């Protein structure tokens, strides 16, 4: 789904809610995944200048999980270490978006090239 404006952030939360319910996440796990998706989709819209979210329900052995990709063709992040520091912000936020959403999921990967864009992948297992 595309993430172009504020309305899409709301749509993204609803989509992730449906997906987490579909694979029967507990309420706390649903809430964590939706909150992480909310933070990352806002980053895509506000800092990445828009982009898209892709999703996949993944299986590994007997466990099931949800993997989400947030991808933009924005300015990229020059210093990932800094961007992942609590309290650091390039905008007007509280600086917990990236670092905080990393704590809400089991796997977190960020690929970014300055001038080309950013892709954040998160996975949470049931």
């Amino acid at each position, binding site marked *: 789904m595309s993430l172009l404006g*504020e*309305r899409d*952030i*709301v749509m993204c*939360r*609803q989509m992730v*809610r449906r997906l987490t319910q579909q694979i029967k996440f507990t*309420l*706390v796990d*649903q*809430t*964590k995944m*939706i*909150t992480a998706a*909310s*933070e990352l989709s*806002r980053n895509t819209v506000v800092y990445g200048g828009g982009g898209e979210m892709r999703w996949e329900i993944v299986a590994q052995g007997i466990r099931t999980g949800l993997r989400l990709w947030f991808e933009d063709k924005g300015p990229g992040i020059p210093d990932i270490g800094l961007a992942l520091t*609590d309290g650091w912000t390039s905008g007007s*936020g*509280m600086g*917990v*978006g990236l*670092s*905080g*959403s990393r*704590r*809400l999921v089991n796997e977190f990967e960020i690929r970014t090239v300055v001038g080309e864009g950013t892709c954040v992948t998160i996975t949470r297992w049931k």
Partner: protein
Amino acid sequence: MERIPILKMGRVLLVTIQVDLQDQVALGLQDDLSARIEQTGANGVLIDISALEIVDSFVGRMLASISGIATVLDATTVVVGMQPAVAITLVELGLSLEGVRTALNVERGMAMLAVDDRNRIDD
């Protein structure tokens, strides 16, 4: 743009957030509330978030900022009804909602504001 209704009950402004908030709506609430505090001279603000399924950093910041603005305008803010799953997530996300007073439900929140009102020395 939709707006969140603000009800006045005595000296308290009551806000119940029942929709999945778009960022601009959250910002609108902040402006509307500050204007209403000034107009009505309310000395308490009660924000019921029991219907909110998530609180992310944006909404968290809005709550903290409303509380801060209200304090400067001589009103006390209490946020009530946070779902346990939301509280767990919020703490893990790293938001402490510093300076924001909370209560378990509307009843306790109103009681808190009533005590606060009685302790005021201005009237």
